[in-house]
């Protein structure tokens, strides 16, 4: 862990007396490698180290009693600042639509049902689920199976292979006594202009209260291109990071927050429908620093 590395480094350095600028640069190099190994984008690492170095130089680290803790404290504060606060998905019980978008296999379909459960349990809102994934084999069946297993109303008319399912969506949902609607979409690449513009058109038709980007927490450098691509092509209000319960350091979360600056609503922490919790910035920072 970074904490151990930096503490070791400074213990070694402080034996030689006062810290020089070179010593600080050595420590920053160790931090750089640790952040890169944690999958933080190299651009974000540079910006982060710049701001840490500025704060460190201005604070007379060399004279500090415990330089390693001091330096790590600055880094930690910087990371926490970047994380921002978790935010809830902004929906009311007035037929609001939440649309889930993202790359293939990130967990959209599973997260759709998790979000339904979360809103029902925490806010008493009754969800209506619908899939407009007409591409992936058995995508509709997957959402229907999950929804029914958890007692949520779901569109079961999978015969219409088009956007017929969206025509009277709010009406259908209201008729079933539902308060809000979750729309699952097919995974797609941010560079697939046809599919991205199709999604944009669907968004304009639906006018969702919230569009949520569903992201795999283990993503590497591609997170920025992907997040920027979806923002330009479709637009979204925030993200849910899935598969967060593994041993990934989650650097993609930091990169996303630093560059995109949209809130992170929740993290997926398992395959179970209950495995969704509000984004916890401290947990993520602890994975990197220790």
């Amino acid at each position: 862990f970074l904490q151990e590395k930096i503490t070791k480094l400074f213990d070694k350095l402080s034996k030689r007396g006062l810290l020089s600028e070179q010593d600080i640069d050595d420590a920053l190099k160790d931090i750089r490698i640790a952040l890169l190994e944690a999958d933080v984008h190299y651009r974000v690492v540079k910006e982060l180290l710049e701001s840490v170095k500025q704060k460190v130089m201005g604070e007379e680290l060399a004279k500090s009693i415990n330089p390693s803790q001091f330096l790590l404290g600055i880094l930690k504060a910087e990371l926490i600042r970047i994380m921002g606060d978790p935010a809830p998905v902004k929906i009311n019980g007035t037929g609001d639509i939440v649309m889930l978008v993202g790359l293939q296999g990130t967990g959209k379909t599973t997260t759709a049902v998790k979000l339904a459960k979360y809103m029902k349990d925490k806010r008493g809102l009754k969800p209506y689920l619908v899939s407009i994934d007409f591409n992936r084999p058995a995508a509709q069946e997957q959402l229907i199976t999950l929804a029914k297993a958890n007692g949520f109303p779901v569109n079961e008319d999978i015969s219409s292979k088009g956007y017929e399912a969206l025509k009277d969506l709010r009406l259908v949902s209201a008729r079933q006594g539902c308060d809000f609607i979750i729309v699952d979409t097919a995974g797609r690449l941010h560079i697939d202009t046809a599919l991205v513009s199709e999604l944009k058109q669907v968004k304009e038709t639906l006018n969702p209260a919230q569009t949520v980007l569903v992201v795999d927490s283990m993503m590497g450098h591609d997170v920025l291109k992907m997040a920027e691509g979806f923002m330009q092509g479709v637009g979204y209000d925030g993200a849910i990071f899935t598969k967060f319960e593994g041993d990934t350091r989650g650097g993609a979360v930091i990169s996303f927050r630093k560059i995109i600056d949209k809130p992170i609503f929740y993290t997926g922490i398992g395959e179970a429908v209950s495995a969704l919790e509000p984004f916890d910035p401290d947990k993520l920072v602890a994975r990197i620093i220790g």
Partner: protein
Amino acid sequence: LSDRTDGAPIDRERYTDELLSLDMSFSIAERLLNEKETHGKQPVDTLKDRMKQILVSAPLIEPKCGILMIGINGSGKTTSIAKLGKWYIDRGHSVIVGAGDTYRAAAIEQLSILSDRVGMDMVKAMPGVDPASVIHDTIMAYKHRSKDVVIADTAGRLHTNVNLVHELKKIKSVMTKAMAGDKMATYLIVDATIGKNSFQQAKLFNENIGIDGIIITKLDGTAKGGIIFTICDELKIPVVAIGTGESAGDFMVFDKDKFVEELFV
């Protein structure tokens, strides 16, 4: 990465950033760029050669054989079975698949649709049934129907989930026993968009289950899958194929020279 041929030495900082952006590890990037320039050779060509030397490739297993597909959730296992199946079918072999994901919603339906499309037999059971028993029954069908290739699908799982890794060990041992001497390969499906965690996956799955080859998927996106340099360098596990799209035809045998060349523009 810029493919310059003007003989000028490489701009270390710029090339380091470019290599890092492929999800290559810092230590390998440094190593590649710190080695002395080779005389008489374009610096970029020297870099390419060193990159190619790190990669390990191997051919796909030859029939008659069995293949166990493993990997984390959403990496592309089920879709890759369709691709692999089609690859063998195009070369005149018959393929049977086992619906070994008895857990995830509509996993069996998904594989069933793909099997019909590509022309593979499929053995399945009710959801919730022990995956090892479905795979065992699939191998029996592979033998009785004299199929050339049997491919077993498994549910996605994280390498950190002790119970699921244990389940996978059992699946593999049941499959090995059922194959009764026929060749078998375990392929790890790696999603190119994932960063350093793919190395952890390869390391832990290899330690616990044993991996014979890697298929790296989703290379049709903007991710480059540079983590395979670390996987090949440290674990010496070969890459056997790549996935380049969602259709059964979006599949290629791994060519390490081509892979490296395509990282440069």
